[in-house]
């Protein structure tokens, strides 16, 4: 029973992880470098949502605020710091993104200090479904995350811009020949990807608490989820997030919670050794 409960807990945390993982992998698909500034952007999104929620905006409005602030900040850093370096290869851009992540984290620290803060949401007792314990709030948060994912999938599948994005990720040259302007797609990928990361930061903070290290805490799990599913693959990121979420919770039962970080590393190691393209390959959709 405890294993089943751990799996349920893992699905809940996997759903929350999936949102920023989609953002991360979508950016990789188009921009072709792992943008590690997601740690700082997730924190920024969490604080933007926190301010909006505190100012009286409803949940949807706060999520929009988190999306917008994180999207704009992420886009700005891409334009100023990461993309100018991409000509030298993915590695310089990735290293620069670690630096910008740190800058964002400390920017938040400067404004809000190190103290953890919590969204002013009522904390409710769990409900039991059979013998499985679920939290109504976490179900709500999970619902929001699922809704967002559906929106992203629908946008990629059915809208012109979504199709253009997939095309550009698949084969940039061919897409350019077809009249898709790569820099516009890059801008869009940056903004939407980072927006999703910001929303992910907020969703993760809703049930726990937020502080300047909120994003840094999830960075490894997020990266592991994207690599596991196949860097650049949006469904892969979702699958990876669920698997990492469940593996992390199950690891608590087997080896103890202090080795949680090892789960992410082991997942990355296994994937890179046995199936470098990830579970679903690197097709954007």
């Amino acid at each position: 029973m405890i294993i089943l409960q751990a799996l349920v807990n893992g699905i809940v945390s996997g759903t929350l992880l999936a949102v920023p993982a989609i953002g991360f992998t979508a950016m990789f698909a188009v921009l072709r470098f792992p943008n590690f500034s997601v740690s700082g952007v997730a924190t920024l999104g969490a604080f933007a949502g926190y301010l909006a929620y505190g100012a009286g905006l409803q949940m949807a409005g706060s999520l929009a605020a988190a999306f917008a602030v994180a999207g704009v900040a992420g886009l700005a850093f891409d334009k100023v710091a990461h993309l100018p370096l991409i000509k030298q290869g993915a590695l310089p851009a990735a290293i620069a993104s670690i630096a910008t992540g740190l800058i964002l984290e400390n920017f938040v620290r400067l404004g809000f200090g190190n103290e953890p803060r919590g969204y002013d949401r009522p904390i409710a007792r769990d409900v039991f479904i059979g013998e499985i314990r679920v939290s109504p709030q976490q179900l709500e948060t999970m619902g929001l995350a699922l809704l967002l994912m559906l929106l992203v999938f629908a946008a990629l599948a059915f809208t012109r811009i979504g199709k253009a994005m997939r095309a550009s990720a698949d084969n940039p040259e061919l897409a350019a020949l077809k009249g898709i302007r790569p820099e516009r797609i890059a801008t869009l990928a940056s903004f939407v990807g980072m927006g999703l990361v910001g929303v992910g930061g907020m969703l993760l903070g809703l049930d726990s608490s937020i502080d300047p290290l909120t994003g840094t805490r999830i960075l490894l799990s997020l990266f592991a989820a994207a690599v596991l599913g196949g860097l650049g693959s949006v469904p892969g990121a979702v699958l990876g997030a669920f698997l990492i979420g469940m593996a992390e919770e199950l690891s608590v039962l087997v080896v103890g919670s202090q080795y949680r970080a090892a789960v992410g590393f082991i997942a990355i190691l296994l994937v890179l050794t046995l199936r470098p393209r990830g579970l679903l390959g690197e097709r954007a959709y």
Partner: protein
Amino acid sequence: MTTIRIGRRAALAAGVAALASPAVVRAQADPIKLATLTPLTGAGGPYGPVMAKAAASVVEEVNKAGGVLGRRIVLVSEDDQTNPEAAVRAARKLIDVDKVAAIMGTWASSVTTAVAPLCWESKTFLCTVSGADSITLLPHQGFLIRTQPNSKLQVTRVGEFILSLGAKKAFTMIPQTPFTQSTFDVLNQVLPKGGCTHQSLIYDDKKTTYRTEVDQALRTSPDVLLANGYTPDTVVLLKDLYRAGFKGKILGFAYSINQKLVDQVGQPEVVEGVYTFAPSPAEGSGAFEKVKAGTGSANPDPYTCQVYDHTNLVLMAIANGKAATGEAIKDNIRKATVSGGKVVDNAVDGIKEIMAGGKVDYAGASGPCDFDEKGDILDCKFRYEQIKAGKFTLVKIA
């Protein structure tokens, strides 16, 4: 410029007069030098200035009463900047230039660890308020005491408190820290003696949810749960314990379960009834009242009380040893708290009794000030509080 010419005869006369004059007058020329090395700036900045003030108030009282061994006391106060490098420079100056007999009040464990070797090598006595267990394990040859309870003493008292709550099954949830293992060891020793089983779980303090960890803990149906983390992870933990419907008692250290945590959880019923625990000054004692008067603070913190005790203990050690050297302080610091001696709460009374040939048992502002051979205090007061309707209410100081 005017040159003052002193003839040989005049100088000789002055010398003879000085030797012939009472000790108090001569003391002006040959003072005993002691030092505080407290953090006036840096992370310890809120504590250091008032700590130095507490020491100065003791020195002032003793000087007013004629000093010790007929000599006046001069207190030199330096700033350690809560920084080991700065502290070492300041300590060098205190030891080499000022030639102080004792340095009191080092606060950060990193500072104390850096300064301690300078002290024992120069035979300068060091009194500290730092908490790290490793400090008293340094090869300090007896030249160091600390008034802050080490983690073993603190956890022992936590264990005793858990037993006093009537616990039969206790559970500890703790992140990986330098004191995690020693916490388990001490609790596994203390709790079974009171008929209470103990189980524990180490968690990752970077997780955003502890649902599975809480499930694991609650499987053992504990009646008391020790939440032994820091504020950010404890917030998440307490929320998850509430969600899971945990009905037992919760207990944690006051450095993590504080007003900030309560504000952040934001919902009083989540933290209702949670017990907190912290080392406490001996509130209400005569020495504590003297610290209040001497520092002008209505609610002096534990460190200030400890430095007040350092100064009193050092001065009484000098009186007992009849010499103002680090060596004499080392050999006599424990003679200021002789059981059966006259109970005093300040050095003026203590020195008077010692000079009259008596023994003293100093009752300090931070506690009884009895030290083991390593320099750790054997006991001190602890403050137990409980959260009721979002407010911390005093349970007891014991």
